[in-house]
């Protein structure tokens, strides 16, 4: 069972308290009706599904209830970091790769 750091509670807690919520940094378009069918399709269905570093959303569903973002390596299943919703993608160049 993974340990996940909630950036709101500032606590590292068992995975059972959290729920995965899909890829991060996919903002809902401000005016969906202005989008072409292809653009809307991409927003709805197209995801990066990388081998390696993945920016994703989690919710501390059995804790504070907040949605937040995480960077996880999909090969090792290791969390690189977590950060609050709305914050930009973190600079990973300084990261040690260890979970906080």
């Amino acid at each position, binding site marked *: *069972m993974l340990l996940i750091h909630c950036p709101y509670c500032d606590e590292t807690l068992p995975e059972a308290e959290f729920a995965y919520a899909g890829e991060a940094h996919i903002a809902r378009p401000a*005016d969906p009706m202005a989008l072409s069918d292809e653009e809307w399709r991409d927003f709805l269905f197209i995801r990066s599904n990388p081998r390696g570093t993945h920016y994703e959303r989690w919710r501390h569903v059995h804790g504070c*209830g907040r*949605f937040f973002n995480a960077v996880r390596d999909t090969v090792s299943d290791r969390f690189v970091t977590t950060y609050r*919703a709305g914050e930009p993608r973190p600079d990973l160049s300084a990261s040690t790769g260890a979970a906080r």
Partner: protein
Amino acid sequence: MTAFRIPGKGRIDHARPVRFTFDGRVVEGRAGDTVASALLANGIHLMGRSFKYHRPRGAVTAGSEEPNALIRTARGRGRAEPNTRATMQEIHESLAAESQNRWPALAFDVGAINDGLYMLFSAGFYYKTFMWPRSFWDRVYEPLIRRAAGLGRAPTDPDPDLYASRNLHCDVLVVGGGPAGLAAALAAARTGAEVVLVDEQAEIGGTLLSEPHLVIDGQPAWDWLAAALAELGAMPNVRLMPRTTAIGYYHQNMVGLCQRLTDHLADPPADAPRERLWRVRAGQVVLAQGAIEKPLVFDGNDRPGVMLSGAAQTFLHRFGVRVGRRAVVVTTHDSAWHTAFDLAAAGVRIAAIVDLRPGVDGALTARAAALGIEGLTGHTVTDTRGRLRVSGVRVNPVADGRVGPGRIVPCDALLMCGGWTPSLHLFSHTRGTLAWDEASGAFLPDRKTEACQIAGAGRGLWGVAAALEDGAKAGAEAAAAIGRATAPGTFAVQGDRPGTGLVVRELPTDADPGRAKAFVDFQNDVTAKDIRLAVREGMRSIEHVKRYTTTGMATDQGKLSNINGLMIAADALDRPAPEVGLTTFRPPYTPTSFGALAGYRRDGHFEVTRKTPIDPWAEAQGAVFEPVALWRRARYFPRPGEDMDAAVARECRAVRTGVGMFDASTLGKIEVVGPDAVTFLERMYTNPWAKLGVGRCRYGLLLGEDGFIRDDGVIGRLAPDRFHVTTTTGGAARVLSVMEDYLQTEWPDLDVWLTSTSEQWAVVAVQGPKARALLAPFVQGLDLSEAAFPHMSVAECTVAGFPARLFRVSFTGELGFEVNVPARHGRALWETLWQAGQAHGIAAYGTEAMHLLRAEKGFIIVGQDTDGTVTPQDAGLSWAIGKAKPDFVGKRSLVRPDIVAPGRKQLVGLLTEDPDVVLEEGAQIVADPRQPVPMRMIGHVTSSYRSGALGRSIALALVEGGHGRMGETLHVPMPGKTHAVRVTGVTFYDPEGARLKGEEVPA
């Protein structure tokens, strides 16, 4: 005392005889025996039959890696377990053990005919043999395979035992209680760190239990062990856990442990759990699991009496058992020579030590000579004799790769040793990589992924001195890693037996290797020639070889066979072993009971059962319940003599003609509050909310961004900034989560609070023409008249003295109210209305009647009449879309090309030609019943009932282009008959909605 038990020897209690049964026969052992050691003490080697060939088999090991001696253990009804390893099961007076895979008897087994037919059962035989004719599959092959397949026999009664589980956090978890593990635990514990030491055996000590001759720091090994355990046991920061197997090593140093608590007790306390599953989160893990001895691969290496030399040593020293009177040792490693010497000292005649290596340590040959043992270096074993027990072994000289003439050496035990394999299963669970070490001829740990140390034989260090030193170092490093630096201690060991050996594939033979039954995987009956055949037939990857031959796929997971299988496959592939590589070890390390994994989560604790405040009343009334999401809901309230149809018909009649009561407390409820509450709902739901007046409510439809219906419910406006949102019973948590998601991440600028109030409100629905007459006398602060409180109104008032939110809503098509009161008042309100309702002929109705009543009106149930691919247009709910709204969740998708394309499945009503036929829900619909099979299916029935109000059956269905098919006749094939149906609208009853007004309250 039996002929094979040595008085006074071993760690068993010679003064305490223990009787158990094996295949019905009473066997006497001693307290501390395993089933295997007790049987061996009685001269019984034959303990089971093999899986495929039904060959007689005996214990080949003395530990958890045992592939052969699998027994069924039982103690009373439901308490039975197949495939228990006889080498691990401790004996007690209540134990009934049975051999497996034999019929009618262990010594005479009809299935052994397979052994003579081995040509049919070569690698991949399932794939080859059962291919044709096709018609044989159902009648011949499948029944045959099902009868023959599987190990043992599972119990059919429910397991009456309790299983527990616990979480544990510690600084250092040490896995394995041999010399390395003990030294690690001592080193770490002496720093004050919280240390847990686990060992799968009944007794901690590992190899020290089998090497009593050692002297450690001036103390005999067993005295040193006792002192070490006493020191650890006295430390408050140490937890010693024998009979505990580390079954899996998971992310971030979480290790699963299975602790066996009662299987060794004759009379366990009734409330004691049988096993306990521990989830340990450790700062550091020390893996000190030692090494597992490798068998040698030669013709007839599976006969009872052929076992690993280390096993014989353990049976001798731990259990005081001689495994035979006259033994031959065959080896490629020094360690078996020492076993031979120990056995000789205990009175076993060693007929020969056969070593494939042309030369071995002179000290060993000299010692053998001094003991009068014939040391045959540069020799091989090519065959064994005997049927139910080995009686002789064929020994041949090998020189320059040529096998010379053989001779038979009589024996009743053949002890083999092909070297030792570091036990790195848990390390592999972490995806730590292994690297082949040419010097030790073994895979050793390479790159670590977790905070762990590997110590002792697990990383290829042989001998107790090396294990102690390495363990102490690992313990000190583990302690240092958590900030408790210490210097590892040193140990003085006398009598140590570090040795070397040679890694080999099959032993050389002068016989036709194509006829040899030289077993690699004992439990799955895989031979060397099976592996070579797999390679000849094109298997190149070790993963394919494994699956084609099934080597390493038995319950022992290749603990004995993996390296031998690899060496043979590598030879057949003509590639170096490290290039061919190992298959991946996965949890659990040893077979683990489902009980341990399930723990407390069984029966009533499997999942939560949510009950409404009115549930006890329903139970007292004899309601029949059904699960709805996690709730249990009253399905109907049968009176004496009524079946479900009769009860539901009566309940519906009451609602249509008088008044009925329904417990709607399970409805999901979300309080949406804040200055931007209306803006939020505008964006979430398809419907317009801005103009909804305070005191009014409206049906709300929630989509996903893909445009498909996710949920629905009635939303009431209590104040400009306060809405009472209801959801489906099953969708409450999901809807709140979706709302939170949008509020937190897409529209954080909106000032809105969301609160789940599902369990704060009890809801009593009062429905029927007499609903107002029943309710009005109890309502204070509100005029219930049609003019003052019309359909789709909401108000706060007092009902029967309780503060209430009263909704004028109808899911039945009749005049209806839903009274929300604080949950604690729910039952009192219910009973008050129930009493008053008697004068009106009230009936309580359940979910079945509720479903029927709403279907008569064509109201959908999300998840029954929709399936996640249904849009508002498909469901005929376009009216619920706020056309003027610039945006809402899912709006853009409603004009996607595939959503506006013709031919989508749309919700329609179906009326069967024969009004008495009730269609099956889920039945498929076809346009032309005369078309050839397989027919083109154009939809399916989603809801179907017999309607009392209409005097006929009705159904809802999703049908391709359904809205354009009104009046068409379609066909529904059902078992026995295809029924013609006419496509209609979905509203079967009171299409004008006239009944919503009910009867005026008499003046």
